[in-house]
């Protein structure tokens, strides 16, 4: 599936971000999940083609790393575009489950049980 754009990339990755190499927000991680807002807010402007591609891929919740792999774009580029989409009200963002020094026993047990079913 990741090879869907085999025609090759016509645009250099950072051209998609207007030359920006840093996101406006620092809270997108590889396993942050993003979901397209459906229907889009009434005040939404028409997204650019690459943004439209992202929105198509996140109709269902998807992790940033998966999105980058499917789009065949660097994570850093995808994150900058996601910042724009978030500011435009087109996506919602869910941060990963925080892992702190005090371990969450229920979470660990759940993961263990899940692995046991593999």
């Amino acid at each position, binding site marked *: 599936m*990741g090879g869907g754009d085999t025609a090759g990339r016509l645009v250099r*990755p950072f051209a998609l971000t207007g030359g920006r*190499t840093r996101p406006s927000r620092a809270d997108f*991680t*590889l*396993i*942050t*999940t*993003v*979901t*397209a807002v*459906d*229907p889009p807010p009434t005040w939404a402007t028409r997204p650019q083609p690459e943004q439209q591609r992202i929105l198509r891929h996140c109709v*269902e*919740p998807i*992790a940033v*790393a*998966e999105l*980058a*792999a*499917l789009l065949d774009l*660097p*994570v*850093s580029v995808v994150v900058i575009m996601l910042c724009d989409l978030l500011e435009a009200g087109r996506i*919602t963002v*869910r941060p*990963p*489950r*925080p*892992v702190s020094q*005090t*371990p*969450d*026993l*229920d*979470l*660990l*047990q*759940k*993961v*263990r*049980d*899940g*692995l*046991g079913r*593999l």
Partner: protein
Amino acid sequence: MADSDTVTRAAPDTVKILIAGGFGVGKTTMVGSVSEIAPLRTEEPLTEAGLGIDDLAGIEDKKATTVALDFGRITIGDDLVLYLFGTPGQQRFWFMWNDLALGALGAVVLVDVRRPESSFAAIDFFERRGIPFVVGVNGFYGEHPYPPDEIRDALALPDHVQVLLCDARERGSCRDVLIALLDQLIAVAEDAEGGGTLTRPGR
């Protein structure tokens, strides 16, 4: 047009475990063995992120270099997804590890018995940062010439780090290594919780 009654599925919680070890030790193989999807790859251009790192000395001009990250996914339930990230094997890409390690439940360090020294640095990385890990000894062609204790001695591992013989090509074998890591994490969590109470309510 989308049906206005459509309810968007709630995004699941996400957690991650790192699969680390030296170059060519079987990390991506392991990710692929347990992942429910074919391992995905993202490539990140190496730009200013790598500057100032000693290990990059001598390759400063290689601005076009990319570092690849392979990962897989295991859906634990409707509301929880586990991601497995294979860490970049080459030492000069290690600055990426700090970001990767942030928020990880723990790690599996894969060791190739034919050249265990290639995984020393990974073991050192997790030890220094206090990130829990287990060691998986990947027996190539399924062969395990050394018992776990001998490998533990060779790697100078502390007693609390488990050493497991595995085959990165086998789903069940990789699953068992991950379960061993989770058991280790659960034991630590239970110790922490048990500090004040003798019993904990049943789940």
